[in-house]
């Protein structure tokens, strides 16, 4: 699992790659905590390279979305892979979280 991030305008684009299992979710949560230390940053999870996500990772996504909403910043998800899309549907995240088909759309 690898996490990279870059600044794109008002957004920090976080790109996790590979299997986001339970240990990886801790790493992701730490990275998000560091990034959200800057209150003005909105966040986009660019999930095009995610092959698997555990429930622990879904919890990190939900907690981040909640935290962003409370702070008045945006939290978006772009280019979900098929397995992640299915998990988002199963867990009812579609319709609650801000999901975009393309990164361009998420950054607009």
């Amino acid at each position, binding site marked *: 699992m690898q996490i990279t991030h870059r600044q794109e305008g008002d957004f920090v684009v976080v790109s996790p790659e590979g299997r986001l299992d339970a240990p990886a979710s801790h790493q992701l949560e730490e990275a998000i905590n560091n990034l959200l230390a800057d209150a003005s940053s909105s966040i986009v999870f660019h999930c095009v390279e995610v092959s698997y996500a*555990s429930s*622990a990772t879904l*919890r990190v996504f939900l907690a981040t979305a909640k935290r962003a909403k409370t702070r008045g910043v945006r939290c978006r998800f772009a280019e979900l892979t098929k397995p992640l899309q299915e998990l988002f549907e199963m*867990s009812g995240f579609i319709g609650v979280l801000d999901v975009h088909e393309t990164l361009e759309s998420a950054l607009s």
Partner: protein
Amino acid sequence: MKASGGTGAGKPCERERSLAIALAFCLVDVLLMGGAAFHSNSLTILSDFLKELGDTTAVLAAFITLRAVRRAPSHRFTYGIGKLENLVSMSIVVLMTGAAVVIAVQAFYHLKHPVEPHGTVPGIVIFSVYAVIGFAISLRNRHLLKSQHSPIIASQARLWFAKASFDALMALTLIVEIVFRDQVWSQHLDPLASFVGVAFMLHSAWAIATESVGDLLDVALGETMQIRILRCLAECFDDYDLLHKIRTRRSGSRLYVELFLGFDPQMSMKDVNERIDRIRRSVADAMPGADVTVTPANPTPLPE
């Protein structure tokens, strides 16, 4: 402040009935197999009689435990005594392993000193009938497991499957032994078949031990249950401000879910209670038998 609810221990009467049937079967089995062992010189039948004694003790202990677990939590055991089910399951593991060792020792002895067994017909009849009944009980337990989780019922389903397979194999072996009694090789069939039975028992014991140890060490609920919880939290997305932590565990057939959520500090206690109640009911409805606790956690300080 904590709010909890959504209790329910599944269908204890149905589970108790299932164990009562198994116990009755075990007691009859011990009596009949004891008679068959007395009538025959077959060490295989004698070792099976000893195995039945072990099985009966395990089922009796499980039955008594289940009745004890059904009692309401006391002042001393405020979370109930659901873990007793896991302890009993572990004792079943020990008994099954012990029985497997005894049978293996007997099998080695028979391989080294083959004997022509006689008086095995009552044993064949008993093995055949019990194989059919054992498979039926195992199927019934597996059917129960589809509607409710219980380490005891799970261990019983495996126990009865192993037992029925062993009985069927013993019956077949003794029949072949009688048919080919003039052949020396037929005298080695008993111990060889016993090794298959030993493998069945050890496999079942391992499976029971793995599950029970996980529950005893408070392993978190599986992914399916976790996703159900997340679905509820997604549905109640506007009812809380922060999602801090989700903690889950299982005690017997009872599930425990603890949600640590942040709420607006300016909100009145009445509003927070109403929201907690909505979230709690949502999770309890999605997970029947779950004891759900929502704990308002201290909000993380927001940067200016």
